[in-house]
């Protein structure tokens, strides 16, 4: 058998972002791979220290646009922890609404890109059309289709008027049928099964070893979800399930995502039903003292962790974050081993790699 080394980039892998792999092939099968990261390295850890706490809300929202709400909300949670700010209950619910809206859109984008990667163009277009319901809702409520600008230190800076809440409730109603239908398709459609079932398998032990998180972990039977394990914001008052699968293949990851999107619809509906009256933001914010804090949240791709250290000025002394894709793309080595070259784009996309988050 001949051994060959090839390099694959964004345009070969159908990725939105520049990510490069050096793949070692034996025959037409993957024997090993190296991720060549750094293309999207914008020096974020340096930049956050040169921006004050206000500016960082906007800067961090642009760490990655697919999980763009998780970053500022987790950052604000860390600042609030340092300063001992309790955010109003209404703000907790509104943060959850923003997070769940982004989760649905992000999961659907991931499923759409995979459909595209296996040449299922009509399905790709169908999922993107369904996702447009969320995109329209984001623009109608927040004024932007990607970066919501929902968070400020001490709360949120958008409100749901009764009309906006009714509109959002309508959009959620509109999402239910297509999400159920897509779940059945990804679960049972023979054409999708042929390409996705038993492909890119990550065994449970390997998943634990790689410490994968998010849908990638939950597709291997690890039911770790920050919203359940250490509830933050409004999540301790909301009812939801953590969908999981055991097969650990591409199909399982997508079923977890679609089931989660369905849970998110229910979460948003609960938020709308329970939304308490009150202020949007804590007033009389204190000065941010010197201190340090860790804040965690469940981003669409898994556990997102922020570490913040302040020195009493309004510039952070240190801001560090661990993003879910960092662990998940290490598991690609296991998933890809022995797979034919043609499956590389699908499997890479099946972990929903966020390169902007990881390279920062």
């Amino acid at each position, binding site marked *: 058998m001949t051994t060959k080394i090839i390099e694959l980039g964004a345009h070969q892998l159908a990725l939105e*972002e520049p990510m490069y792999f050096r793949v070692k092939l034996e025959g037409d099968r993957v024997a090993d791979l190296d991720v060549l990261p750094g293309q999207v390295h*914008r020096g974020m850890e340096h930049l956050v220290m040169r921006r004050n706490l206000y500016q*960082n809300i906007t800067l961090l929202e*642009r760490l990655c646009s697919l999980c*763009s709400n998780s970053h500022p909300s987790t950052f604000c949670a860390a600042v609030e922890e340092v300063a001992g700010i309790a955010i109003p209950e209404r703000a907790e619910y509104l943060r959850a609404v923003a997070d769940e809206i982004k989760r649905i859109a992000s999961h659907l984008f991931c499923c759409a890109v995979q459909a595209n990667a296996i040449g299922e163009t009509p399905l790709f277009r169908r999922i993107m059309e369904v996702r447009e319901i969320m995109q329209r809702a984001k623009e109608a409520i927040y004024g*932007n289709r*990607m*970066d919501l600008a929902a968070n*400020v230190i001490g709360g949120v800076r958008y409100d749901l008027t009764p009309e906006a809440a009714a509109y959002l409730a309508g959009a959620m109603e509109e999402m239910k049928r297509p999400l159920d239908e897509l779940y059945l398709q990804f679960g049972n459609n023979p054409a999708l099964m042929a390409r996705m079932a038993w492909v890119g398998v990550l065994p449970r032990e390997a998943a634990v070893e790689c410490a994968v998180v998010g849908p990638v972990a939950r597709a291997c039977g690890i039911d770790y979800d920050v919203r359940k394990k250490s509830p933050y914001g409004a999540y301790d008052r909301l009812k939801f399930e953590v969908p999981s699968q055991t097969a650990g293949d591409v199909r399982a990851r997508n079923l977890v995502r679609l089931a989660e999107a369905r849970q998110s619809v229910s979460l948003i509906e609960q938020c709308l039903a329970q939304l308490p009256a009150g202020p949007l933001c804590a007033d009389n914010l204190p000065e941010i003292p010197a201190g340090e804090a860790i804040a965690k949240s469940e981003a669409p791709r898994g556990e997102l962790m922020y570490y913040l250290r302040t020195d009493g000025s309004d510039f952070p002394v240190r801001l560090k974050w661990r993003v879910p894709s960092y662990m998940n793309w290490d598991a690609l080595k296991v998933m890809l081993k022995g797979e034919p070259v043609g499956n590389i784009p699908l499997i890479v996309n099946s972990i929903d790699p966020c390169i902007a988050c990881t390279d920062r």
Partner: protein
Amino acid sequence: MHIEVEETAVGPVRLFRINTGSCNGCDVELAVTSAVTEFDVEQLGCRYTESAHEADIVLITGPLTIRARDEVLRLYAQAPRDKVTVAVGVCPVSGGVFRDSYAVDGPIERHLPVDVNIPGCPPRPQALLAGIGAALEIRRARRDGEEPARNPDHRKHHGTDNFPARGRMSYDAKACVDCRMCRHVCAAGAIRFEAGDGGVRLTLWHNSCVFCGLCSHYCPTGALSVTGDWRLDHRAADAFTQIERGEVPYAPCTGCGEAIIPTAPQLLHAAFRRPNPEIEKLKNLCPACRQLMSIGVPRR
């Protein structure tokens, strides 16, 4: 061997996207213009290609990281010489929120010529289509051997059309009190204050602004507000005229005559709700004269 191929009406114009290290917002929205019927670039007679050699129009996203630079320039060089280049989002033009980073080597114009800018963070698909339309104009004009018309007056001020999209910022100098909170919270450094002889001037550059609206959120008087005007595509040559500007004139303090920025009525209303004539008098006084009037002596 070079073969002249006559362009036919049916051949689609090929779009090629280069991500130079973006947050993926613009890239995801460009994916929408390949997948969603309402925004499909096919309505403009375009189609995406994954091969740089076929590119008629190159779409560039991201602030150009140092790590991506060589690959970006290599891909760009592969595209045919008569391509039209479009900078998508504010990052390629100004660096957006990522400006001043050691890892960023923009603006992209230092490395390659840009024809059209589409400001936005990210631009909504309607704005992307408008910008791609502008690139098609340029392409057509160049093919016909004409100089493409500068500043074609096609800009419709849509107001908010169906949704209140966060568009261009608007500045009302009459309400401004020169507190500069807007500049303090702007992550992209899009706002500049200059003190001149006659007053203080604010300049906001739409090619740096990321349309987050934080300046307007923290503005105590509503001097800065978000408009629904998202149609901001323009020729790259006009990049630096895309600004919002206004001047707050100095007025003499009615007590001592020193040139001061008078308090805007909006701030008085915010502070006192219903200002009476006595309070109104405060607004044209400098801080020292104000203290003199209210507590009899200047503090300190």
